[in-house]
């Protein structure tokens, strides 16, 4: 209930802010929304997963903000660089990627380990780098973007009822060159 209230409050707050197209949501809002989205994934719905926040050279500072936001939302999270020392990765691991993470290495890792990938940058989902991303719409409300080919490639499955709320991207052409089939 507490999380729901927080999410509701954040949603109202976001709605009151002046809206801009493709604007990223605040880390706490993202964490609260992603925590709910995890509930609609087939393997992650029972227990909260562990979130690995991959940062690039430009986003190392924002990584800590996201770790804190996920922790406040009740989700265990840690930040690391893709070429650095990574913690153990399994099917209950979710990778939150910033735009400056090398795309080819990210996709190879996600596909091989069947890891669910998310991002706060909507362009990451549109371009097929991650499965799910968030954005703030022009009316201030958040929007969920789901890249269906990518999520299938990662062996994940979202509830159909969630897909009715989300903007579904179906074009496999959106996958970046060099990504695994």
């Amino acid at each position, binding site marked *: *209930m507490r*999380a*729901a209230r927080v*999410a*509701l409050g954040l*949603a109202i707050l976001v709605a009151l802010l002046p809206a801009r197209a493709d604007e990223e949501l605040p880390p706490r809002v993202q964490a609260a*929304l992603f*925590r*709910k989205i995890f*509930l*609609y994934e087939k393997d992650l*719905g029972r227990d909260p997963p562990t979130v690995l926040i991959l940062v690039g050279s430009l986003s190392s500072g924002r990584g800590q903000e996201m770790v804190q936001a996920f922790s406040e939302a009740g989700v265990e999270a840690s930040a690391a660089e893709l070429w650095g020392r990574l913690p153990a990765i399994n099917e209950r691991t979710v990778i939150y990627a910033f735009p400056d993470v090398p795309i080819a290495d990210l996709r190879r890792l996600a596909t091989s380990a069947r890891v669910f990938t998310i991002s706060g940058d909507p362009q990451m989902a549109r371009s097929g780098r991650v499965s799910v991303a968030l954005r703030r719409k022009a009316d201030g*409300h*958040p929007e*969920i973007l789901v890249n269906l080919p990518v999520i299938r490639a990662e062996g994940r499955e979202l*509830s159909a*009822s*969630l897909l*009715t*709320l989300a903007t579904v991207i179906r074009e496999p052409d959106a996958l970046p060159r060099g990504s695994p089939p």
Partner: protein
Amino acid sequence: MSMRSWIRDSSLQVRIGGFVAAILFSVAVFLVLSLGAVFRSQGRAALEARARGMADVVADAAGPAVDFDDARAAAELLRAVGTGKDVLYCALHRADGTLLAGWNAERAGAPGVKAESREGELRVIRPIVSRSGVAATLTMGFSLAGLQTAERGALASALAIAAMAFLIGLALALALARVLARPIEQMTDVADRITRGDEEASRNLPVRRGDEVGRMACAFDRMLTHLQRERAALAARGEELQRSLQQIKETQDQLLQVGKMAAIGSVVAGLSHELNNPLGIILGNVQGLIRRTSDDHLERKALLAIERQSQRCRGLVRTLLDFSRKPNGQRQHIAAAVLVDHVLALSGTLARDRGILLEAAPAPDCAVVVAAQEIETVLLNLVSNALDATPAGGRVALGVRTLEPEARAVEFSVTDSGTGIAAELLDRVFDPFFTTKPPGQGTGIGLPLARRFVEQHGGKIVIESSPGQGTAARFWLPAAPTPSRSPLA
């Protein structure tokens, strides 16, 4: 008319038809009522199940919208749901009672209130807890109009089917009753026809059927056959009894006649015997006086008159003695033609004197065994009566013929063209001393004596007459047996 008497007096067809109609009507009413109740309850249950299932689906689909507080997605969902059949309204309220989304939500009323369904609608309230634990309430209303329309349609269909089944059943029952009653009516008709005298009607009995009616028809047929046999036997006994009665009557008449004749005969015999002696003395003395009286004596005519009348009285007494005398039994074989010739010879002079034609047709070759004098007396009496009854110029005919077959009897007849005898007198002509002749001309003994002689010979005599057309007297005697011819002849 009471129900019991109506049932008792109605025909079998009406009773079977009425009984089946009552059963069919009861079953039809029961089916219509029970089908209506069953359809109503099952229709309501089906609608409730459908409403609950629909609410479950909507609640499940609305989970993400509740989770993410997405009023737009929730409104789209409820709008899509609202286009469903029989859906009146649907509303999704947050846990704090505020409306998240709705379709015709104003009809849903206060959120979370478990209100009773209003008239004509079914209200379903479904609490929702999202995957992230957010609570909400889904309220949906469904119209019962479709269900009620379907109920009315089903009831009308059930009524139509029940009415059709009732009519078909009634028609079949009447046909069955007719099939059952027809052989009974047929047997009744046969009984009526037989009562009216149609003996051939029993052929129409339905005896070829193998059922109870067929067995009853067979029994009825046997009873009819038995009755016909009994009736024929009864008729034969009746005829026999009639003949016996006729014979008894004839015997009684004969006994009466014999008794009468015996009584008269004894009186006449005594009287004749007493008269015969004085008459003999008178006649002897008168004849002696006549012999002693000359022809020219004046008293001779008176004596001759006394002698004629005495002779007449003597003849009368002799006739009376013949009447009372027992048969002498001296019978002889004599040809019928000989008898007729004797009578013609004896009566010819009298007929000529009276100007009457007395004739006889040639007699056939036949003979009788009789006391010839008696039969001649019979013929003479009959001829005498005929001559008395026939005026001058008339005709009296004697006839003889043999009766077929095999000439067992010989008929003698005397017919005249005289005045005839009245019908009321015919029955009395054989009574002794009955005569229609003037006093002094008839004794009333001739015909009784003739009847006595004929019957003593085993024959029979009848008198047929019609006033103004003459009289025919006939008597029959057994024919004499024909002598067998010798093979050497």
